[in-house]
């Protein structure tokens, strides 16, 4: 398994799509606070780092965590089928389960890195520019970052599952972006008609991710916030590896 992780990490390091996304997001995370500061004037009315972190960095990150890794899924997973390298992987003498697991793990790592850029870079730069004015509590900061990684991993597991089904970068990206844009509305609408779907939606990673910026969690709520993405990650990972196990590689 170790060698497969090294193999996938090597490819992620060399993946141009990944670095384009990373640098694009870093640029956005740098430019946005700069615009605020230039707009409001340095030092006249200090910007609250806590507010910016909660509303802009975490709020805006919702779209990044759900949508940007969809592009990576297309290029990092599905394109292996179209360029033929999946064939050499399938014939390499490694079990399909290990191949899929290594790919999922490294793809999740890539998605986690992408998911952290906005909260970390934007908050860090804002803190420097505002002279560390009204900083968020460290415990809260770390908890939200941890949950961001966890939900990014859960979503990436669903993305890897779709990427294994479609085996074409364009189809994968198109489907996943539509899926992640529409899934909340679809589950919400179904929930209005059938209470079963409301329960599903309320206990899904899609809904719970919107709550990660809450300042406090009630008893059992944090456990739910942790368990749901973990279960999503494992369940989608297992289904994905089962599909990959049965799939004929063309």
């Amino acid at each position, binding site marked *: 398994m170790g060698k497969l992780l090294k193999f996938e990490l090597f490819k992620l390091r060399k993946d141009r799509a990944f670095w384009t996304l990373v640098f694009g997001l870093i640029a956005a995370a740098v430019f946005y606070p700069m615009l605020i500061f230039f707009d409001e004037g340095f030092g006249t009315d200090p910007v609250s780092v806590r507010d910016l972190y909660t509303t802009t960095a975490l709020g805006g990150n919702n779209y990044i965590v759900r949508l940007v890794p969809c592009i990576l899924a297309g290029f990092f997973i599905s394109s292996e089928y179209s360029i033929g390298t999946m064939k050499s992987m399938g014939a390499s003498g490694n*079990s399909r389960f290990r191949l899929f697991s290594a790919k999922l793990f490294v793809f999740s790592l890539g998605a986690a890195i992408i998911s952290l850029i906005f909260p970390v870079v934007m908050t860090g730069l804002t803190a420097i520019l505002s002279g560390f004015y009204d900083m968020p509590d460290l415990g809260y900061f770390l908890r939200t970052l941890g949950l961001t990684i966890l939900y990014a991993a859960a979503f990436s597991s669903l993305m890897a599952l779709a990427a294994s089904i479609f085996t074409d970068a364009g189809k994968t990206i198109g489907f996943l972006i539509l899926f992640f844009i529409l899934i909340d509305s679809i589950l919400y609408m179904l929930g209005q008609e059938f209470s079963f779907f409301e329960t599903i939606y309320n206990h899904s990673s899609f809904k719970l991710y919107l709550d990660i910026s809450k300042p406090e969690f009630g008893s059992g709520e944090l456990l739910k916030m942790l368990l749901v993405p973990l279960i999503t990650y494992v369940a989608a990972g297992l289904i994905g590896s089962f599909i990959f196990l049965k799939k004929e590689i063309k």
Partner: protein
Amino acid sequence: MEEFVLRTNNLTKQYKNQFALNKVNLTINKGSIYGFIGQNGAGKSTLIRLVTGLAFPTTGKIELFGQSNKTELIEARRRIGTIIEGPALYPHLSAADNLEAHRLLKGIPGKECIQKTLEIVGLQDIGKKKAKNFSLGMKQRLGIGIALLGEPEFLILDEPINGLDPMGVVEIRELLKKLNQEYGITILISSHILSELHLLATHYGIIHKGELLEQLTASELNGKCQQYIHIKVDNPDRAATIMETVLGTTHYEVLPDGTIKLYSHLEAPSKVSKTLTDNALLIEQFMPMGEDLETYFTNRIGGVQHG
């Protein structure tokens, strides 16, 4: 008994009502170069995909290095190198990086093998050029280099000389011969370029419509390829009459270009040439010949189609 690298037993692959492979019993002996011949869609790639684990048989058994159960087969595949339907390259990576990726995939310790492999396939001076900018020949050579990583005992090469220029074809042929003779690597090679296979293979398997029609050694093939005397004279019609009346044979054919293929009197060609010249025919070409692999293959599958 010869040691085998690959053996299939009644290997069958069925897609709905169509058999891509039908009860194929194929054996590849250790140290051989096995030329796998068949038309497009005959089942060559399907068999290769089953052996390499990319597809799954409907029924039948695959034995690779004597291993046949699922887990053992996965392990056994570590001892093979493959090119399946074209070289599998990362287009945005250089030759060295492509080899590095596959080195990591195969878990080969040490990076020394990369430079060595680049030298074997003649890409040591390619530098940082990305694979997407390679010529087809360079891609094929890099594909072979990837297949060679980890010193495999068995190479499975599906159309490895496709798109190569004549010099490239010769280079790859010499490389494969060297790998076979000096390193003892067994090679399964499928190609449409039968003249090339004829120069390389020690064994042949002919597959047609999913059925393995025949397996034979190179010497058996040479024995089976029909021998004839190739004759070109100034008046083929008169030559035909003389062959029937004087030599007493109808075992010949006159081709549209006037060339005559004489299948009898192979043991006495001088008698034939003397008879023709004695009858005032001007001989332009006269040589004993044998059919090549292409003709044999065409006849073999033609026989099935019309038989």
